[in-house]
């Protein structure tokens, strides 16, 4: 049975239904059913190329929209849906309403479409839907600053989206097709491309930078993460990471192996170094836990894109693997921030001494913190090691050096936050207050699953790496620069 379209369509349909139900008593029931079903679809769909809305292949060119499904995309979509399900489970313990659930599902559907799609215009449509969903999720926290952050995000999102479409238009004018595979075949076989192709490449980099939070859009993204509810910030940064991976893969599929693309790879590496260093420096300065985590999310985007932008098969594997690891531990950290801010506050100068109040949660947050700093035996260590190795093999030892320094900065700021939240002495009467505040079981359940995944992928990284390797070799082998 062919269930692939349901990966995209089912969340969108449920989003419409749940939006209309709003505060009906069936919302919780429908949410539970939805989160179970979206986990199953990626696992049971069959690998292959799918054609929709057209006549399949006509005269060697694809007409209509095509989706490609392979093991790498299966892992990416499954992890995306898993994080989405855990966020939905957490939201069951909060004041849930249909609109928030609908926005999460809208984001899940559109980001999985960006991952699966082999058609540039389809990517653009879902890119805009994802932007609206993310702005809506930020505004759902209801504070004044959240509205401001969401509005800024929408304005810049419309701008970047229009520029991306401008680029897609230029590519269409230069090649006459929107299908990514066909476009690559055309570009690989012509002598010298028209100037429009260069413009299209530039506009695609702008769209990618906005979608993922690379500079110059890093402050907008960090603002969005810090103003959203912490458990929603987890899913927001998951969307950004997967949009980044999907868009860079699309760029490699179109331009891979062409001589002028090497310059763009250099630009991407430069942007990612800036994101890494800026993110960690800003994180060291923050006194608010949510803001600290938001800037770390920016810093981690740099890691993912540096691996992918290297363009060697090992680099692509490292980039995708780090992206997957990163969404796991970062969502765990944001969930931890959610629990901490429920118990006390997210202002690091006002809290302290939470370790005796919730030792198990503290241990799980520590695991996630060690994972993000790249300490063995957690998953962050495995992917950072692969990233360093790929940079060394690509003959760029200075990149490895920067990665290690940024890692040290990450470790310092994370341990500072851990001390201030859990270990700093605190008056006894305040501890009694903290003990009386109940934490929902749902969020602790999600945090446990994510911590277990951190340890599992840290001990057995081959589960993911071996699955991605053939795909990365396929894309990376096109990159032999003549």
């Amino acid at each position, binding site marked *: 049975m062919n269930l692939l379209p349901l990966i995209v369509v089912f969340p969108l349909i449920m989003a419409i239904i749940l939006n209309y139900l709003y505060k009906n008593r069936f919302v919780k029931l429908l949410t539970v059913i939805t989160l179970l079903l979206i986990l199953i679809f990626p696992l049971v769909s069959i690998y292959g190329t799918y054609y929709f809305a057209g006549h399949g292949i006509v005269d060697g060119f694809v007409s209509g929209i095509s989706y490609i499904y392979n093991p790498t995309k299966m892992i990416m979509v499954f992890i995306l849906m898993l994080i989405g399900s855990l966020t939905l489970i957490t939201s069951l313990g909060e004041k849930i309403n249909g609109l928030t659930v609908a926005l999460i599902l809208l984001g899940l559907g559109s980001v999985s479409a960006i991952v699966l799609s082999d058609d540039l215009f389809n990517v653009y449509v879902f890119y805009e839907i994802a932007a609206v969903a993310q702005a809506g999720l930020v505004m759902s926290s209801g504070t004044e600053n959240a509205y401001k952050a969401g*509005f800024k995000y*929408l*304005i810049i999102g*419309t*701008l970047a989206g*229009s*520029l991306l479409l*401008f680029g897609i*238009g*230029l590519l269409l004018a230069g090649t006459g097709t929107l299908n990514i595979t066909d476009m690559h075949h055309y570009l690989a076989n012509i002598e010298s491309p028209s100037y429009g192709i260069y413009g299209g490449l530039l506009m695609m980099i702008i769209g990618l930078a906005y979608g993922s939070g690379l500079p110059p859009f890093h402050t907008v993204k960090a603002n969005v993460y810090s103003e959203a509810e912490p458990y929603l910030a987890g899913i927001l940064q998951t969307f950004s990471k997967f949009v980044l991976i999907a868009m860079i893969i699309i760029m490699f599929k179109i331009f891979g192996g062409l001589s002028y693309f090497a310059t763009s790879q250099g630009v991407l590496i430069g942007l990612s170094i800036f994101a890494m260093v800026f993110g960690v420096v800003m994180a060291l300065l923050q006194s608010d836990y949510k803001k600290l985590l938001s800037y770390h999310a920016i810093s981690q985007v740099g890691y993912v894109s540096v691996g992918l932008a290297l363009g060697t098969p090992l680099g692509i594997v490292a980039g995708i693997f780090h992206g997957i690891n990163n969404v796991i531990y970062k969502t765990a950290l944001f969930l931890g921030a959610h629990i901490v801010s429920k118990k006390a506050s997210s202002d690091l100068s006002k809290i302290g001494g939470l370790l005796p109040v919730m030792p198990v949660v503290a241990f799980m947050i520590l695991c996630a913190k060690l994972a993000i700093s790249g300490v063995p035996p957690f998953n962050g260590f495995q992917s950072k090691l692969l990233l360093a190795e790929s940079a060394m093999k690509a003959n760029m030892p200075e990149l490895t050096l920067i990665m290690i320094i940024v890692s040290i900065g990450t470790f310092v700021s994370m341990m500072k936050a851990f001390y201030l939240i859990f270990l700093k002495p605190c008056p006894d009467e305040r501890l009694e207050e903290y003990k009386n505040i109940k934490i929902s079981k749902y969020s602790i359940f999600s945090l446990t699953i994510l911590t277990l995944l951190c340890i599992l992928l840290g001990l057995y990284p081959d589960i993911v790496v071996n699955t991605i390797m053939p795909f990365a070799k396929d894309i990376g082998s096109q990159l032999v620069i003549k």
Partner: protein
Amino acid sequence: MDIQLISFVVSGLFVIMGLYGVFFIDNIIKKIISLSIIGNGVNLLLISIGYKSGGFVPIKLPSVSMDVFIGNMAYPLPQALVLTNIVIGASMLAIMLSLSIVFYKKYRTLKSSVILKDD
């Protein structure tokens, strides 16, 4: 002169004018109008890609033979894209305008330097 070239240049001018408006005009309604101008510039670019001098509407009529039709029809793909993009642009416009109503009720001004100031 070549009509296609002129419309490419005009669409580029639209985008540049819109970018100026988004970055330098201190009024959220005017910013939103500028975004709309950028969107229209992009639509103009897309529609002029499919332009063909003296071409047909890409609908096959029984009275036109297939060879003549294929030789003379305009490229239909960009027209479909523009239609989709107009819908997306309208919905984005609606969301942003409704948000600016909320901001105006709160601040009693439309200046973006006041409304979007960081605390």
